[in-house]
């Protein structure tokens, strides 16, 4: 029940894009059609689900103050938390490289349409942000952290698919020429963000 609550909360209330504005670059650039958006959304969700428990275990057993005491009692006062950022980035970057190789091999068309934004998943702020929030929220177990990763990923996926669907529709409307494409997308995202702010105050049971 606790996990279900967290899952729903991380999709809608703590939505990565609309509540924290993380992962905007690929969100704006790869939302031209629903199919590509879905592909990138699945890739990001996958990365979050894979890296979240790894980073959780790293944080719990290596990085936190005194976390190394399971190795030997003499290490109990070692504090490696300053290495957090670079360890998380290393995990995420190596994971991204694996995903890139897998996508290139199994779906060359998706690989071509994602273009530069596939390697950019490594610096997708949503994934690093997820790891940092996980550290901040102090989850009880790796399982809870995975649920949080899945929820945030699905929230990101819903947001990018929603935006892609709107962009496919507005392809037929008469927008002032300089605003076509990116400009109107920024405005739509801004308005979606204002709408999602109404979720911010909600507390689930």
């Amino acid at each position, binding site marked *: 029940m606790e996990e279900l609550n967290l899952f729903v909360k991380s999709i809608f209330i703590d939505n990565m894009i609309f509540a924290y504005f993380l992962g905007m670059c690929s969100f704006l650039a790869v939302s031209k059609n629903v199919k590509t958006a879905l592909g990138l959304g699945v890739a990001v969700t996958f990365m979050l689900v894979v890296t979240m428990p790894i980073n959780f275990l790293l944080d719990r057993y290596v990085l936190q103050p005194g976390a190394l005491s399971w190795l030997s009692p003499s290490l109990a006062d070692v504090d490696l938390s300053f290495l957090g950022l670079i360890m998380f980035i290393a995990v995420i970057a190596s994971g991204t490289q694996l995903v890139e*190789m897998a996508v290139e091999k199994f779906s060359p068309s998706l690989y071509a349409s994602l273009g530069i934004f596939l390697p950019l998943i490594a610096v997708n702020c949503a994934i690093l942000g997820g790891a940092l929030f996980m550290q901040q929220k102090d989850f009880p177990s790796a399982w809870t952290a995975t649920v949080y990763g899945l929820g945030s990923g699905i929230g990101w996926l819903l947001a990018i698919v929603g935006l892609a669907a709107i962009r496919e529709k507005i392809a037929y409307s008469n927008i002032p020429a300089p605003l076509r494409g*990116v400009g109107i997308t920024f405005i739509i995202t801004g308005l979606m963000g204002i709408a999602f702010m109404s979720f911010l105050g909600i507390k689930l049971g």
Partner: protein
Amino acid sequence: MLNKKNKEALFNPLSKDNPVLVQILGICSTLAVTVSLEPAIVMGISVICVLAFSNVIISLIRNTIPSTIRIIVQLVVVAALVIIVQQVLIAYNYEVSKQLSVFIGLIITNCILMGRLEAFALNNKPWPSFLDGIGNGLGYTIILVIVAFFRELLGSGTLLGYQVIPQWCYDHGYENNGLMILPPMALITVACIIWVHRARNAELQEN
């Protein structure tokens, strides 16, 4: 030193190939640091330094990096440079570095860095890569400063911390627009800049 190609690498990113307006890179930090002008300027300068030097380093070792592990190599180079910038700021301007500590760390995940390393530094010699880094950093800084100018002016009535909207305006019922402080308004401000920019550069308009 500055032949035609190098000039393009340096000056195109300022307007015609601007990283924020045209390449759509580095949006996250554009939203995060533009609430007021001062952090935006410091952030811009830090990004210029990190971008120029990481471009040079990656360009120098571009023939020795195996393409399968290039992302990790790039991130290590960027992270090392970001830590240097952070330490310099702590040493010479402690107050600003305390305000900015989170944002400086965020340079690691700034897409402009990875984008330029992948798209330019991996295929070009060090000198053009250096110019490309400076150009893109400047292009990014210009947008940051414009967005921060309007958000600070309309949201807080100040510029660089000094009050610019005179007191008698407030006495006559003028209110700061609190909406400008919220992140969605940064998006809409950037959209307005894109609108003006593309109205002046018709060849950038999309169909």
